[in-house]
């Protein structure tokens, strides 16, 4: 995939400020890229505005990211990306214990607690797809009417069936590898004869080892029996194309992005560091979509340009422009201010940044729900040592898991979850393999041949089950702004207040029990210990748990059926400002037990159709 040379620099701020575009899109992540591609394909003039460093997506630049990751001492999700004080990013390593009345202001996110979240999102060209895991399950049909069914959360103004054709579009765009038959469970269904673009990626040896102890066993929950099995996850990573895809037309995988035709991109080869960054670009990132859009002369890109205010025409209520701050040098706080105008304005800057920008513009909306209902999956980690070598550290981070408890009537009382089997051992929980190496050298005095044999023996027996647990929307979990907290360009920083709801904690408690049961069936020694000094330590019914963030941010401009119960409608259009769209995870009224990217991509494909209709209706000239 060719990224057009110079596209990141070809548009001058002056020219852009003098142009009225059909659409101004804030954010060049997956949402903004899909919108830009869909609108420009129909000849619309689109301006994409990206806050992060603005360089062409060259192979050299991508490999510099990979090299920076390799060299980093702390390999968190942001480690491939240079620090940019003009566009700061939240980092997992920023999180500290929060004391009542004393917000933690040390990272980019100001956190008032009580729960200290280590959630993150990435502010570079390509957005969070530059670090995502690329797991792409669809939501369950029951996730869309959870309130009606189980009295929990919020109903969507859309059903699974409404979204189904757009799921297929998103799966094509991302290039998903999965087996439709294996994904047909708990009500998930497909168009007749549907096949995914690429064949299912194989389960790792570790998955198969876990499957031996799990497949065909049952658990009882709220009076119902659930049969368990280890299943492969759908993945946005290139695998074997399905010859039967698209009525037998097949699918051509999209390879690496570069300014020159040098690297064609490879199939997923199971690199364990695929999060944060796939060394061979087998994993989808939004530059693959953005490159297509930028091939068209009617798409302009302004990078290093941070939206600071959405301007509203007081008479019509329409957005009249977006005020932005452009910086030439990431190491300097100097910037110039511009106003950009479009017939439509699309905020696609992530759930937290969209809300931050609206609130910084004094736009709480009629429902006053902007920033509220912030959601992110709660992750509970459980780790154990298997009785024999199980090939841990082979394969990408996660290839399979247990998803049978993603849905069911038990959701009236407690949160559902999906279980990931982690191929990267205890890394997420304990800092393995580095922590193991340190312990063996410093504490166990191993060296030489003994160390060489002991280390792989222990590492390849590590099993980590990560439970991704539903967190329903709650208005007190929110993003707000406070004039006391600004970044270097003077933009207001997001202030996060978050409590893990009791409903979720009941799911957490059950997850722990469930993990112990699985470990017993596998004859594995449970090594799970939650550290009470962990900033994200939470107690519930006398037990303590460390809860990790999932980076699946949602809910902050929630969609609904009228202007008083929601910020946007089912098309992700603002109820209050008819030419303003807020797109991405922020529109989702629930996250269920699915990673959010596929669903938000599907929503963007759907919204792009409505944007085109609106543009045709409002700009058609006689």
């Amino acid at each position, binding site marked *: 995939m060719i990224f057009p*040379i110079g596209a990141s620099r070809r548009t001058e701020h002056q020219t852009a400020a003098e142009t009225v575009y059909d659409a101004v899109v804030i954010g060049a992540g997956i949402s903004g890229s899909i919108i830009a591609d869909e609108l420009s394909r129909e000849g619309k003039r689109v301006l994409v505005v990206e806050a992060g460093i603005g360089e062409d997506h060259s*192979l050299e630049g991508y490999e510099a990211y990979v090299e920076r990751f390799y060299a980093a001492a702390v390999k968190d999700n942001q480690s491939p990306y240079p620090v940019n004080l003009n566009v700061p990013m939240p980092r997992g390593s920023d999180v500290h214990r929060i004391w009542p009345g004393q917000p933690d202001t040390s990272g980019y996110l100001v956190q008032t607690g009580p729960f200290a979240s280590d959630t993150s999102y990435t502010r570079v060209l390509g957005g969070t797809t530059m670090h995502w895991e690329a797991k792409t399950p669809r939501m369950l049909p029951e996730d869309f009417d959870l309130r009606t069914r189980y009295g929990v959360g919020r109903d969507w103004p859309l059903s699974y069936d409404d979204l189904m054709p757009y799921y297929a579009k998103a799966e094509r765009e991302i290039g998903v590898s999965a087996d439709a038959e294996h994904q047909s469970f708990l009500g998930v269904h497909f168009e007749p004869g549907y096949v995914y673009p690429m064949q299912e990626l194989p389960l790792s040896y570790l998955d198969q080892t876990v499957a031996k102890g799990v497949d065909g066993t049952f658990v009882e929950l709220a009076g119902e029996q659930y049969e368990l099995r280890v299943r492969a996850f759908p993945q946005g990573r290139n695998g*074997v194309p399905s*010859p039967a895809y698209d009525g037998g037309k097949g699918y051509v*995988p999209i390879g690496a992005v570069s*300014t020159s035709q040098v690297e*064609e991109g490879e199939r997923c080869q199971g690199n364990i560091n695929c999060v944060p960054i796939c060394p061979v670009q087998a994993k989808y990132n939004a530059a693959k979509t953005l490159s297509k859009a930028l091939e068209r002369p009617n798409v302009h890109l302004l990078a290093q340009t941070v939206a600071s205010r959405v301007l509203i025409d007081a008479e019509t209520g329409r957005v009249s422009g977006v005020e932005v701050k452009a910086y030439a040098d990431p190491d300097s706080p100097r910037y110039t201010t511009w106003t950009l105008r479009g017939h439509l304005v699309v905020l696609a800057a992530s759930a937290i940044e969209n809300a931050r920008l609206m609130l910084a513009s004094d736009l709480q909306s009629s429902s006053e729900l902007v920033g509220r209902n912030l959601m992110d999956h709660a992750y509970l980690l459980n780790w154990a040592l298997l009785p024999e070598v199980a090939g841990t550290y082979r394969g990408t981070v996660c290839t399979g898991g247990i998803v049978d408890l993603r849905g069911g009537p038990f959701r009236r009382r407690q949160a559902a979850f999906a279980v990931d089997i982690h191929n990267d051992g205890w890394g997420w929980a304990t800092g393995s393999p580095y922590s193991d190496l340190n312990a063996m050298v410093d504490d166990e005095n191993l060296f030489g041949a003994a160390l060489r044999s002991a280390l792989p023996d222990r590492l390849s027996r590590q099993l980590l089950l990560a439970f991704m647990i539903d967190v329903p929307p709650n208005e007190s979990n929110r993003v707000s702004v406070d004039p006391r907290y600004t970044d270097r360009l003077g933009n207001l920083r997001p202030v996060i207040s978050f409590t893990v709801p009791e409903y979720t904690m009941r799911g957490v408690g059950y997850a722990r029990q469930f993990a112990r049961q699985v470990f017993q069936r596998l004859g594995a020694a449970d090594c799970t210990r939650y550290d009470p000094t962990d900033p994200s330590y939470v107690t519930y019914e006398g037990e303590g748990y460390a809860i990790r963030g999932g980076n699946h941010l949602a809910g902050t401009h929630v969609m609904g059926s009228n202007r008083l119960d929601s910020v946007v409608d089912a098309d992700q259009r603002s109820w209050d400002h008819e030419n303003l769209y807020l797109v991405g995870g922020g529109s989702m009224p629930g996250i269920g037990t699915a990673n959010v990217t596929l669903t938000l991509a599907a929503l963007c494909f759907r919204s792009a159709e409505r944007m085109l209709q609106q543009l045709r209706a409002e700009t058609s000239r006689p």
Partner: protein
Amino acid sequence: MPAPKITSIDLLYDYLYTAMQLEHATIPPYLTALYSLTPGTNADAFHVLRVTVVEEMLHLTLAANVLNAVGGRPDLTRPGFVPTYPAYLPDGEDDFQVSRCAFSKQALDMVLNIERPRKAPEEAKRTIDRGQVKHSRLGVEPNHPAMQFYSIGEFYEEIWRGVQYLHKKCGDALFSGSPEKQVSSEYFYSGGGQIVIVTDLKSAKAALDLIAEQGEGFGGTIYDSEHELAHYYRFEQLKLGRYYQSRDEPHQPTGPKLRVDWDSVYPVKTDARLSDYPEDSELHAAAVAFNRSYADFLGLLTRAYNGEPALLTDAVVEMFRIRDRMTRLIHNPIPGQSTLNAAPTFELQPQPAVVAS
């Protein structure tokens, strides 16, 4: 059209076997140059070489598909399949040999010679009598070792003429091979250039054209008909220090600059042989082990091309092992020759005595 040289199915089998031999013959030199680059340096050269190797494997597979389509049996394990380097390619001027050597300006010139687009000036010059073969030669007319084709393109042109001739003679019965043996895009994924399933005249032409165009370009342009930059121009970018972009004219790239660090290369011994390594050294043992595993790899490919295409997935894993085994040799100096590093020797069977030239 002048009389074709391929007038029987057995001759077509010979030519297609030679085609596979030819496509494979560039792989050991390209891999040696690729893995001679110091890791973490020379990203541009690394990618150009890597992508080209993958496409040579595509050509190998396309040739196997054509051979299977006409009922032949691809066999990469036949003695002599892997040439003894240095070896001549069918270059009209006979001015260079193909060697397994480190990446260097000279090596780049060699590669450009291999990939150079050439069409014979006139029909009569498509083959050239080079006299008795003293060295290992590739692209020779089978059963006629003295006759060399002017270029790889002319060699494939001859195959195409033969396919047409035989199709005229025996009709669709020419394509008698089992479709089960065709390798499809499910099993071969190069990113650039799609595999062609060969079942008839049209698909045979598509497969043969793709092989020729990916090397040399199509219709005088720098791209093939699938908009892939031809190999010659990919390598020329390294020589000229600049990338091509669409609409560029040959030899005048206007894309972004690139840099080659000629010094960040391991000084591997050119056309290294087992006899260069002390008999009881670790290097010798590693080189022997490499040759054994490379022979096994060719055996695996032969099975993949004979009805077990799914084995190509295993072959990808094997390519990672080949990389590791090659770098183990390339990263180590030869005992007693402090300025030269080892390299895999690709000697898969007892070597004939070297003929003095």
